[in-house]
């Protein structure tokens, strides 16, 4: 009973927070002037106009998913499976691309590859590319995919690493007895983690589908920029919402394909671990290749954007000015981010439980349902939240006028993500762990508090950290709903960006990176200590 009530409550909460605003927007888009009309949808499905845009969106998302797995899978492999030197350092650094505002990465690479850029000069001098063609590359769908993959590859890296670490070592051992490292890799390890890779690629696919900043900066015409145009040039929220429909359709198709693919695939990869060990390929050349690879990735994805920022911040006084500007943003971001991440972890746990642990035919559709609206742009959600929450009644006024509207925005945007991460961890505990408590006759809350949550401490921490990073970076929804005085760091950055000296803007970006990594580091340290003292060994 407790279980049903709690899960039902959380699910209802999820529907209210994520679904209602968007459904409201869609309802609004077909209802007007006292009648229903599909005029905005006719355009999308009955004219040629949007075919190019939709295919652009698909191309952008597919190439990004592919490119980021080319980087993310090997990076995850080297981190999990080789004796890579400076492993911790690399891992920490590879978080940074996720944190740097994608816009900043975009500018950094646009500068480097632009006609007068440093890399452009090198490429055109030594590689026979014309400066035009290089600069055209970055201002194209491929350039946009390139920059997006730099930002998103950590997602694939993290999931790959996690899957590899949880591989049952016996499966690989049996291969290693007979075959070479390479063969084992190709024939055993890779196929075993394929489901995890597919699932991470799907996340990246949907994330890049909904990305607006980079396509807009590099002038790529995709669905999100179209939606933006409808909002900002035509002030037509109905048409804008209508264009979000293909995004939902694409997400639905991709999710369904993934489920069809995964159907009947054994989940041995995420199954119970035979022991606590992970097989490491202790081969020297592999470590060498790993170091080279990781260093290259580090340069391309971290050092280049970061050093452009550091370089253009120039003086210490720029940081001083930036901190003065961002003072409120810093406290707000850390506070809202922490609360948001806590709620997201909480929601993620129960939603993940729903989509993973419930024995019901509805289970698969639950996962699909949770993800359905993930690609809907933040703007549509933001406007939806305004319409839903901005009411004169007391409680609404309280929510809309306080930090809670920002938190609701975070939860609405990222609970699919947090539930997915949590679901992956939940897969790991056998059902019997919970059932053993049920049979004894313990209440579900007792089981939850004493068994499920403690067993999931690693998963909860990981979910919290990733949620925190996404929350701190969130801007599309927040900027539409935040009450005066509640601005977060990215909002400070973007409102200040217009006409502020470039060095202060850069310094501000650096502050964002530091302010995200700092709490993450502190949290990680505390939780490591807590877990160690809890499981004494």
């Amino acid at each position, binding site marked *: 009973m407790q279980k049903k009530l709690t899960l039902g409550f959380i699910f209802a909460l999820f529907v209210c927070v994520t679904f209602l605003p968007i459904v409201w927007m869609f309802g609004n888009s077909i209802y007007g002037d006292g009648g229903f009309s599909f005029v905005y949808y006719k355009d999308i499905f009955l004219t040629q106009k949007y075919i190019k845009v939709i295919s652009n969106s698909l191309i952008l998302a597919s190439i990004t998913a592919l490119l980021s797995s080319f980087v993310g899978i090997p990076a995850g492999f080297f981190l999990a499976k080789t004796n890579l030197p400076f492993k911790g350092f690399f891992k920490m650094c590879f978080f940074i691309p996720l944190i740097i505002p994608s*816009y900043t990465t975009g*500018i950094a690479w646009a*500068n480097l590859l*632009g*006609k*007068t*850029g440093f890399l452009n000069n090198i490429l055109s001098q030594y590689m026979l590319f014309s400066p035009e063609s290089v*600069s055209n590359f970055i201002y194209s769908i491929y350039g946009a995919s390139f920059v997006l993959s730099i930002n998103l590859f950590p997602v694939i890296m993290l999931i790959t690493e996690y899957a590899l670490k949880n591989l049952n070592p016996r499966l690989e051992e049996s291969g290693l007895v007979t075959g070479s490292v390479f063969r084992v890799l190709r024939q055993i390890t890779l196929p075993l983690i394929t489901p995890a890779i597919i699932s991470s690629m799907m996340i990246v696919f949907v994330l890049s589908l909904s990305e607006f*900043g980079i396509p*807009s*900066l*590099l*002038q790529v*015409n995709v669905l999100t*920029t*179209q939606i*933006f*145009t409808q*909002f*900002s*040039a*035509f*002030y037509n*929220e109905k048409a804008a919402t209508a264009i979000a429909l293909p995004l939902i359709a694409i997400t639905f198709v991709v999710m369904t394909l993934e489920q069809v693919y995964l159907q009947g695939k054994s989940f041995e990869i995420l199954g119970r671990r035979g022991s606590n060990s992970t097989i490491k390929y202790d081969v020297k050349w592999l470590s060498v290749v790993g170091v080279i690879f990781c260093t290259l990735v580090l340069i391309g994805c971290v050092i280049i954007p970061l050093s452009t920022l550091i370089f253009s911040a120039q003086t210490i006084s720029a940081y001083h000015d930036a901190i003065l500007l961002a003072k409120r943003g810093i406290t707000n971001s850390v*506070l809202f981010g922490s*609360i948001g991440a806590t709620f997201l972890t909480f929601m993620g746990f129960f939603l993940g439980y729903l989509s993973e642990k419930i024995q019901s035919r509805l289970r698969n559709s639950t996962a699909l349902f949770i993800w359905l609206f993930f690609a809907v742009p933040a*703007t549509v959600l*933001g*406007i939806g939240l*305004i*319409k839903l929450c*901005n*009411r*004169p009644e007391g409680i609404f*006024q*309280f929510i*809309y*006028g*306080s*930090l*809670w509207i920002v938190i609701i925005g975070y939860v609405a945007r990222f609970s699919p993500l947090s539930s997915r991460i949590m679901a992956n961890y939940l897969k790991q505990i056998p059902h019997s762990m919970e059932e053993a408590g049920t049979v004894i006759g313990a209440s579900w809350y007792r089981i939850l508090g004493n068994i499920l949550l403690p067993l999931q401490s690693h998963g909860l921490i990981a979910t919290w950290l990733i949620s925190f990073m996404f929350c701190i970076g969130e*801007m*599309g929804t927040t*900027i*539409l709903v*935040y*009450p*005066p*005085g509640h*601005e977060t760091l990215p*909002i400070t950055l*973007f*409102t*200040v*960006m*217009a*006409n*502020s*000296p*470039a060095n202060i803007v850069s310094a501000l970006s650096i502050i964002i990176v530091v302010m995200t990594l700092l709490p993450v580091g502190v949290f990680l340290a505390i939780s490591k200590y807590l877990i160690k003292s809890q499981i004494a060994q």
Partner: protein
Amino acid sequence: MKFITIALTTLFMLAKWCSAGNEVIVYTSEDQIFAEPILQEFEKKTGIKVRAIYDTEETKSTGLVNRLIAEKDNPQADVFWSNDPVRPVLLQIKGLTTPYVSSVAADIPSIYKDVDGHWTGFSARARIILYNTNLVNMDERPLSIFDLVKPKWRGQVAIANPLFGTTSIHMAALFIALGDEKAKKFLNDLKANGVKIVSSNSEVKRLVARGEVKMGITDTDDAHMAVKEGVPAKEVFPDQSTIGTFIIPDMVSLIKNSRNQENGKKLIDYLVSSTVERSLAWAPCAHMPLRYGIKTPPDVLTLDAVKGMNINYPDVAAKLEKITEFLKQWAGY
């Protein structure tokens, strides 16, 4: 359970109750670094707490106007301070503003004010050509936007996406000044000449500053910031001998049915005062005062020294709505 209650209570304590006291809420699309000092000054003078929401550059987020429209049924903002002259007209059309004629603005030329007081203009920017002095000589610099279609500058001109912000307004003004046929031809020629359409005015500035293009059309504030940053670039007020340069005044409107109408009016009175016009002229954004006789820094022209386009702003707003579809196609969207 006890724990949860305590946790929730603490969290709710964190939420400040926001609607109390003597305050005014202003949404402004004027850049934060310029607007904030002005608003602080107002706070100091009147003791009214100003709570502001600033906008990003038009193309970086779906900004404030959409928020204002969405909040229509329960308006949060009392005052909208726009950095362009068209969006207030748009809000007026959508029925979001309420008339307020400020007596302080009496000496502002009437073309910058709505007769009924739905919007009042002050401090202005202008659309100018910014060129890179390392790549373009003083004597070959373009003096008219029509020079930009010359083969000489093929692929060397940048312009921001004409669907958004001041660029879109500029285009609408051109359509009025030239007539539809001529304006369309000009835009098509520009495109045929390989104009680079970039995301925003500051992108134009960035590309000119880095020498990736030789020149671009942008706003005076971007040009002034570029010069301040030591970039080898200079501005030209185009078409001084013909149609004139397009002038973009800031405008301020009172929002209908908002909670602090009286404070809102006080803020409007302050914003349209000559004090603010003066401050904005001396600020790095270098806004040109609409009033004559306000002392400005040497590099900030006053409106008597510039020939402005003779344009009625509500017409621009109406025109913009008509040509947006064309602009969308022109920009390749």
